């Protein structure tokens, strides 16, 4: 008998445990040639902003051991084009959609949420308060419990929908539990963790940082233990808080670690760049990992590592 892989994030029921990670699958369309996107738990879109945004200069990428640095800088078409093209495609293809939003300031987050609250086809909101590729580190709202809470309160105040609001957290903080607690008090339905870690690679032939943006976000299996630790800590402190886990998941075995640490579902990110079929493959592998250990469902394993 195959294990039940259905799960949920707050009020959002997911038919499959793997989602795409924001920034790693655009808005889903490009992955459609490698699998049926509607069978994924959800597509979490690349973070959308109010205005079109060119992103940062190249080079934007550097491969690192079991990972990569990126400094894309939130390149995107802006909310208007997103609704007209990307969200329309997702709706037409019956894709469960979590829209990731990013703002330059608190008001922009609110404005984006206000717009998205009025349209059909948004099954959840992921509030990206932790993108490291912005000019000012002061804009990384998730590095400060007060600014993190301020963004969430503003979004919450205009979000009159049952669809869950998730806050995406940065691991580049002294105490991620403190940040999680502050966004919970501000009204989130769950948290997504972790975003990338800030890193740098230096080109020693040119004697300068390799990335056009100088610093970039480190992702991939290299950061997986950091993600598992962060999820474990937050689940220990806030056991009822739904967690969408991500950070270097490459196999079903990796995904099972995240579930055992306390995640209810997982997003597949950087590994998609090398293996676009990964979100489907990992869901299958996760099922096998559960069955081989005698579990009947994913739900019974959420946070199980805390019992031992």
């Amino acid at each position: 008998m195959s294990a039940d892989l259905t799960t949920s994030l707050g009020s959002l029921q997911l038919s499959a445990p793997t989602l795409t990670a924001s920034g790693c699958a655009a808005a889903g369309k490009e992955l459609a040639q490698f699998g049926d996107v509607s069978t994924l738990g959800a597509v979490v879109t690349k973070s959308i902003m109010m205005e079109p945004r060119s992103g940062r200069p190249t080079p934007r990428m550097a491969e690192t051991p079991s990972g990569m640095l990126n400094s894309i800088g939130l390149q995107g078409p802006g909310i208007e084009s997103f609704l007209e093209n990307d969200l329309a495609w997702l709706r037409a293809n019956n894709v469960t959609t979590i829209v990731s939003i990013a703002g330059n300031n608190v008001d922009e987050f609110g404005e984006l949420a206000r717009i998205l609250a009025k349209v059909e086809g948004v099954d959840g909101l992921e509030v990206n308060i932790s993108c490291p590729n912005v000019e000012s580190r002061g804009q990384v709202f998730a590095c400060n419990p007060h600014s993190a809470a301020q963004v969430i309160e503003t979004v919450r105040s205009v979000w009159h929908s049952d669809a869950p609001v998730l806050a995406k957290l940065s691991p580049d903080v002294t105490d991620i539990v403190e940040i999680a607690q502050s966004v919970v008090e501000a009204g989130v339905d769950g948290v997504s963790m972790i975003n990338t870690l800030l890193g740098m690679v230096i080109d020693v032939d040119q004697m300068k940082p390799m990335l056009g943006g100088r610093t970039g976000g480190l992702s991939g299996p290299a950061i997986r233990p950091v993600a598992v630790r962060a999820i474990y800590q937050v689940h220990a402190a806030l056991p009822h808080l739904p967690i969408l886990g991500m950070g270097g998941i490459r196999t079903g075995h990796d995904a099972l670690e995240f579930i055992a640490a306390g995640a209810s579902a997982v997003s597949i990110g950087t590994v998609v760049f090398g293996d676009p079929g990964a979100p489907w493959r990992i869901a299958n592998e996760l099922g096998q990992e559960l069955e081989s250990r005698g579990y009947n469902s994913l739900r019974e394993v959420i946070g199980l590592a805390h019992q031992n």
Partner: protein
Amino acid sequence: MTAKQMKCTIRSIAPVGNYLHLVLDAPEVTEVQPGHFAAVAVGGVGGGMLLRRAFSIHKSIPGDSIEIIFAPHGQGTQWLATQGAGDVIDVIAPLGKPFVLPRQPIPCVIVAGGYGAAPMEILARELRIRGCRVDVVLGAATQEKLFGVLDLKGVADSVIVTTDDGTSGVRGRVTDVLGELIQKNNSQAVYACGPMPMLQAVAKVSQDNGAFSQCAVEESMACGIGVCMTCVLPVIGDDGVTRMSRSCVDGPVFRGDRVRWDDVNTVPSDAFGAPRPGGH
């Protein structure tokens, strides 16, 4: 055809000058056009290299095989060089927008630097099928870094070789001979593949001599399928607006007069969505 992710068995891998010629079983690839590329996973399952390496497709037999040419100069390509016949690698192909072929039998020039010549034999054949005159300029730093000279001589009306050190053909750069060639044959279209500085020079010489150019660019990619946004460069669209375009899905072939070559590796201030004074 849409791109397929496949496990491909290596049929053969053999040195050609300074490069390696890889022939892969690819029964699922039913159509390849000149300029299409393949993205190859390197390092094996569970290895430390996550990102695919992109190579233009050298040749293909529909429903049977694809061939690529590569230079083992980085960690990933060095790993690929250690693979042998019978080994299985993960490949996505065909990818990208290929060269646009002319409807009329116009005189064309093909220009390539080093193993940028890899996709040019099948391009030359397609052009000849359309009745086009095809003249070829192949350049490299030195003789061992030339690729495809004999094969292209078998297809093209003429082949001029240039090397920086004069070890083969004319000493100098491809652009030293390109202008005269365009004038002599009244060439209307120039097709180019090679390093970015060469492409920039080819685009300029083509334009100065009244020919259209199409350039297959080399930008480092993480995914090759359009999701990562790392391989962008500033390209002017039909509407006159410059966008940071993805070389994997909007290219790799771009019109030479549409790429803002001087602004590659920057975001021009008039690009769509560029930072405004005071930040984004």
